[in-house]
């Protein structure tokens, strides 16, 4: 018997071809870039809002300070000028103008008389005596109180302002004092403030960026680590390593996903194992079936005095039936039928053992079927340690006389249809099935055949044959059929009975091996 290795087929060749693709822009980088952009955006917004509010406040404060300075200096100028005009003290006026023009942000100083003739001017003595007729001068002259030109709006500063005040002496206007202030320094200061804010913002951005990048790399690695673990796991599963387990501790969606994948791998593994087992079992059964079929005679036997016809059908996955028939010398015919309990390899081995012993000893046992059954029983009992059983019916017929001896080890009783009388003869003698007890003593039982007798040998498979209503074909139906067909030859009887059994079964599946043998004794 050629040894066939069970073929184990892993059906994951498709998943093996999964290529390891390089990640171009990983989650880590994407997350980092996103966080950096977010930081820049937030800091920029904060910086511009800060710049706006701070410069506005600064502008207002500076303007208010300038107005205060303007009022103080004009008050000082007008009172001093009043003294100088009244006492015609030109030196005092010049000194005062010179002093005030040294004040911060002052552009020019003009002192006029009540008709707008220049009495003193910060830009030089050559201006003295000139009559001022410009709009600014006329407005200043006409006003009886301190005014600022142009109109002062601290949120929209002009490049320069002029504050003017009437110079009064004993409630009479004796002239006009005017000081022009430049706002250039305010704008300069604001520029510096803005620059500082921008500088600070940039520093903040750089600082937070540094922190942010570190933080996002950390965050990203927390997130991408389990993702990488998942990818590694799937890759391992894909390449057939179903023992791999993804280890993710976090109890978030990724952890849940990992659990699911692990569960899937476990189930796939079990399924694969089952598939392999099935495959192995299938192969073993196929082998067992092959063994079984190769052990039994394929042709019917037609002798001068005896015809032997048979039907034999094995079922996939169910071991069991074995039969054999052979001439012993010139005068004898041996027939053996056995039903091994169980299926697959062990049953096949029992069968092989029976056959080997039968063919070794068949030549020397003309007078005792029991002797051979004894040998077989002891061997099976020893080899299979009392765990494998079989029924066995062994019969030897003396062809000339029709005398037969048989031994029945737990098999169905000897059943003979006597055509001449139209009756069945049953002999229920026998002992235990083989393999059960090592010390069972099997006996020879005798029977005398008459011309036309039919010996019926079968296994349970025939009588157990079921139709789709789960009814069994049964003993009665079988006997009745044989009786009806008894005038036909052995092979015809067999084929007719089997035809009826098949008809009875219909589409229902066959569960068991079927062996059906008719021995027709035609007389010596």
């Amino acid at each position, binding site marked *: 018997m050629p040894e066939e290795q069970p073929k184990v087929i892993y059906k994951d060749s498709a998943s093996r071809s999964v290529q390891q693709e390089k990640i171009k822009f990983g989650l880590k980088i994407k997350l980092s870039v996103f966080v950096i952009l977010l930081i820049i955006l937030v800091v920029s917004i904060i910086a511009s809002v800060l710049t706006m509010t701070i410069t506005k406040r600064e502008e207002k404060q500076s303007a208010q300070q300038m107005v205060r300075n303007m009022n103080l200096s004009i008050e000082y100028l007008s009172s001093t000028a009043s003294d100088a005009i009244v006492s015609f003290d030109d030196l005092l006026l010049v000194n005062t103008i010179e002093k005030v023009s040294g004040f911060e942000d002052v552009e020019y100083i003009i002192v006029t008389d009540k008709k707008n003739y220049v009495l003193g001017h910060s830009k030089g003595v050559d201006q003295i005596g000139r009559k001022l007729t410009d709009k600014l001068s006329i407005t200043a002259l006409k006003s009886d109180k301190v005014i600022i030109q142009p109109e002062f709006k601290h949120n929209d500063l002009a490049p320069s302002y002029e504050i003017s005040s009437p110079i009064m002496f004993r409630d009479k206007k004796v002239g006009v004092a005017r000081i022009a202030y430049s706002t250039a320094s305010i704008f300069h200061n604001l520029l510096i403030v803005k620059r500082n804010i921008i500088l600070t913002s940039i520093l903040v951005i750089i600082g937070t960026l540094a922190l942010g990048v570190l933080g996002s790399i950390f965050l990203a690695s927390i997130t991408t680590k389990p993702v990488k673990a998942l990818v590694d796991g799937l890759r391992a599963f894909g390449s057939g390593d179903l023992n791999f387990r993804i280890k993710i501790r976090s109890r978030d969606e990724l952890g849940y996903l990992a659990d699911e994948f692990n569960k899937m791998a476990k189930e796939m593994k079990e399924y694969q194992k089952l598939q392999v087992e099935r495959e192995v079992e299938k192969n073993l059964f196929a082998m067992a079936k092959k063994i079984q079929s190769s052990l039994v005679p394929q042709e019917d036997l037609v002798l001068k005095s005896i015809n032997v016809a048979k039907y034999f059908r094995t079922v996939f996955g169910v071991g069991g039936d074995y039969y054999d028939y052979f001439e012993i010398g010139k005068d004898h015919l041996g027939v053996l039928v056995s039903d091994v309990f169980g299926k697959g390899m062990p049953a096949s081995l029992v069968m092989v053992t029976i056959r080997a012993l039968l063919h070794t000893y068949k030549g020397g046992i003309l007078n005792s079927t029991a002797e051979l059954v004894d040998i077989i029983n002891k061997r099976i009992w020893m080899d299979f340690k009392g765990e494998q059983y079989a029924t066995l019916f062994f019969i030897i017929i003396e062809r000339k006389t029709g005398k037969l001896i048989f031994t029945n080890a737990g098999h169905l009783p000897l059943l003979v249809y006597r055509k001449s009388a139209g009756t069945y003869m049953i002999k229920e003698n026998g002992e235990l*099935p083989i393999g059960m007890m090592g010390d069972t003593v099997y006996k020879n039982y005798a029977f005398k055949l008459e011309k036309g007798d039919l010996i019926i040998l079968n296994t349970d498979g025939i009588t157990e044959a079921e139709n789709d209503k789960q009814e069994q074909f049964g003993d009665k139906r079988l006997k009745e059929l044989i009786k009806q067909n008894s005038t036909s030859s052995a092979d015809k009887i067999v084929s007719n009975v089997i035809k009826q059994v098949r008809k009875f079964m219909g589409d229902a599946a066959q569960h068991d091996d079927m062996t059906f043998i008719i021995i027709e004794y035609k007389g010596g």
Partner: protein
Amino acid sequence: MELKGLSIEVVEKDNGVIFRLNGDIKTDIYSDFLGFFKQKVEKANMIMDFTHVNYMSSSGVGALFNLDKVARENNKKFMLFGLNPSVKKIIELTKLYDKFLIYQTEDEAVKQLN
């Protein structure tokens, strides 16, 4: 519990278990039948109720023989009751009737547990 055409009901008793069988014990059930009951009879006294078993093949008798053997090896009792004539007949034909502890009724079998 259902094995190929045979349903099994388990009744726990003080000193053993009754298995009520319902259906047929055919040839193809042999391995499953043996596998199922073997591990049970190793641990406890076992009574099989055959009242609703209509048919048993000779291999079924073989399975009972094996269970009886396992029970003896483990000092447990393996008993049968309620055998109908055809089941009784097949056990007789396989010449094993005397080997088993067979009782007519459930009460008789249960009595043996104590």
